[in-house]
């Protein structure tokens, strides 16, 4: 272990003084500022609205304002860049930043849990990257060095991770067998995804939100633009949608066509979203660390120590079932991470649209001897159906039906009856899918509606358990249980009370007797 420290020290000694990052970071700060403006656009809208008339009369003023804004952006960007400094001292990283409110961070390498490299598109020609450091604790302590040469960042990353594994071993001397510096160097690629895979992923999984999020402020304009475009072609949408004077088949045809018309761009955007997020996808493994790299515009890198894995989710929507594809998710503790990044998506490792054998290989890799697909799942009680269909859906439907009949709007019954039948089908599928099983090491949960998800986690990762029983359930010796992991809570309703409590007892026993850490 001493050797590894010696091998890495040169880089550390290179930078004893406070250093400025490369001027390329100006681009990064500009982008951040523009993003800030964009996300606060709503706040500026009134000013724009009221200023608009004034501007029309006085164009020079508008020019002045634009020049002013540009100057402001330049100045802020430059100051941000000027005040951003970092220093590497022995096993510590220090970062000073901020123009008006100063920020100083001092992070010992050993406290760093996760190192991420993010490469926005404008960094790529110059070979720069943005280094992000996550600590186990709160989101506040998270730090990033905005612009580093890729080689240097990689080197620094290795150094930090090596440091981390050393201290880790010092604390737990018993499991130091595997991680030699060689293991740190060797990266094994576990999976890559082709464009075809990503297109399939885009079709089966709606990634439309990536676009909707950005487009949200313009919805109204887009809608009115679409309507006016159609009327330019002589199609009056409002007239089309007036149903009363048209035969049923025509309305149906409209509905189907309209659905396709709306769906088509959605699917297209969804595919684009998948490609943007997962372009050049690789999942690789270095020692006990799994690394996901992907991205078309901004290259993301997410890494996770195996010990930080909380749960594996094997996800198949109904379309995935038809196409025989699977999305596999490695869940980390998310309650801390969701706070500081809007795309919480980026913090879990997801393997998009893989085949069953690839999925099985990956799951076996993280959870040896698991029986996710072979174990017999126990279904939840049929009383789940009784409760939801007879005691919730039926009264609700009857009430609405009676209301419509009394008020004489019987044609609306045609609307709600299919809806109720669909809801009943959903409830049935929910029951049909929901199952559980466990063996010595893992708990398995199966759930879904038309698609099906398999969840698998180790007993000792559990944070808290809940045993719930209504008066109705108690009479039939049923219960609902809930198992809280750092990645979220998992519910299991309507199972046999003795089975439920036995499962929780087993979980508590394993958590308490193993003494293993959940991180």
């Amino acid at each position, binding site marked *: 272990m001493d050797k590894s420290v010696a091998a890495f020290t040169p880089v550390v000694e290179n930078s004893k003084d406070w250093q400025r990052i490369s001027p390329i970071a100006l681009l990064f700060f500009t982008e951040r500022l523009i993003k800030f403006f964009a996300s606060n656009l709503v706040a500026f809208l009134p000013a724009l609205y009221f200023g608009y008339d004034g501007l029309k009369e006085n164009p020079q003023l508008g020019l002045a304002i634009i020049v002013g804004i540009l100057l402001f952006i330049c100045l802020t960007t430059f100051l941000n860049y000027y005040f951003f400094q970092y220093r590497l001292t022995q096993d510590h990283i220090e970062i000073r930043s901020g123009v008006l409110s100063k920020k100083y961070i001092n992070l010992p390498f050993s406290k760093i849990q996760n190192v991420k490299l993010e490469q926005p598109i404008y960094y790529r020609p110059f070979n720069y990257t943005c280094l992000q450091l996550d600590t186990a604790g709160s989101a506040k302590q998270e730090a990033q060095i905005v612009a580093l040469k890729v080689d240097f960042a990689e080197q620094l990353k290795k150094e930090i991770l090596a440091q981390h594994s050393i201290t880790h071993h010092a604390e737990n001397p018993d499991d130091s067998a595997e991680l030699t510096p060689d293991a740190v160097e060797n990266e094994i690629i576990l999976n890559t995804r082709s464009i075809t895979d990503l297109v399939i992923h885009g079709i089966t999984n709606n990634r439309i939100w990536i676009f909707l999020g950005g487009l949200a402020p313009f919805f109204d304009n887009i809608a009115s633009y679409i309507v006016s475009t159609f009327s330019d072609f002589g199609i009056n949408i409002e007239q089309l949608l007036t149903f009363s004077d048209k035969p049923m088949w025509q309305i149906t045809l409209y509905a189907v066509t309209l659905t396709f018309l709306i769906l088509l761009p959605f699917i297209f955007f969804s595919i684009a979203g998948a490609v943007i997020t997962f372009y050049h996808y690789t999942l690789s493994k270095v020692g006990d660390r799994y690394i996901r790299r992907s991205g078309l515009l901004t290259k993301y890198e997410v890494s996770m120590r195996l010990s930080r894995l909380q749960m594996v989710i094997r996800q198949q929507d109904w379309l995935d079932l038809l196409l025989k594809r699977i999305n596999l998710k490695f869940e980390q503790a998310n309650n801390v991470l969701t706070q500081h990044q809007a795309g919480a998506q980026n913090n879990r490792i997801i393997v998009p649209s893989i085949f069953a054998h690839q999925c099985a290989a990956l799951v076996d890799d993280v959870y040896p001897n698991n029986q996710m697909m072979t174990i017999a799942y126990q279904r939840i009680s049929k009383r789940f159906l009784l409760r939801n269909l007879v005691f919730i859906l039926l009264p609700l439907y009857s009430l609405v039906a009676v209301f419509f009949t009394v008020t004489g709007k019987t044609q609306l019954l045609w609307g709600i009856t299919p809806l109720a039948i669909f809801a009943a089908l959903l409830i049935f599928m929910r029951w049909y899918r929901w199952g559980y099983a466990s063996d010595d090491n893992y708990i398995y949960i199966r759930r879904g509606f038309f698609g099906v998800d398999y969840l698998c986690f180790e007993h000792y990762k559990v944070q*808290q358990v809940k*045993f719930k029983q209504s*008066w109705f359930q108690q009479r039939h010796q049923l219960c609902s249980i809930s198992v809280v992991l750092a990645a979220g*809570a998992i519910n299991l309703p309507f199972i046999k009370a003795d089975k439920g409590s*036995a499962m929780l007892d*087993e979980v*508590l026993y394993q958590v*308490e007797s193993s003494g293993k850490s959940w991180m």
Partner: protein
Amino acid sequence: MFLSKADFAVHYTKITGNKIKGFNHMQGTAFTNTSLTAESLPSLVELEFQPISAIYRQSNLIINVAFTLFLVTLLFVIQQQNIWPLSNDVADLFNWLMLVLFMLGGFNTLYAAFADKQKFYALRQQDLSYRSGLLFRKTVSQPMLRIQHVELKRGPIDRKVGLAKLQVFSAGGAMHTFEIPGLPLASAESIRQFILDHKDVNRHG
């Protein structure tokens, strides 16, 4: 006050009159469940629950009644005063408002009075459980090993009647923080100390 676990068990028993279930008073820190078969695992079904303080129930009842009466009286005063007379319509509306408030408050008071009787906690050597709920009974069990930190919270009323709330935080997130209300201050403090002294909390926290 730093007690060893064995000292604590004695201390806790002295203060509250309860025994810590599963605690081996002879051996102290050794985990006592090592070689059990599945049938004889320590079970949640056999938890020996302790009721929370009766003072909590009473003070809660008084607060609920007082709050309801206060709101209704406030409305009544506003309705009857002559400084800014209300129009007839609004005054009528106030009658309804008072009725609704009275009924809601009454229902809430009644519910709380019965629900508070169903609040229990159980402390074992390795975990802390809290049971609550009138129609939907819920038992939350929190292993000591997974506790991030504990807090004692005491509002003005708690301080007046000598009670405390114990809040237990885990890495499961804010949604799953649980709180045991109505503990006598001495037992709340000793439970907290028991959790802090749990050697594994110190190691992982």
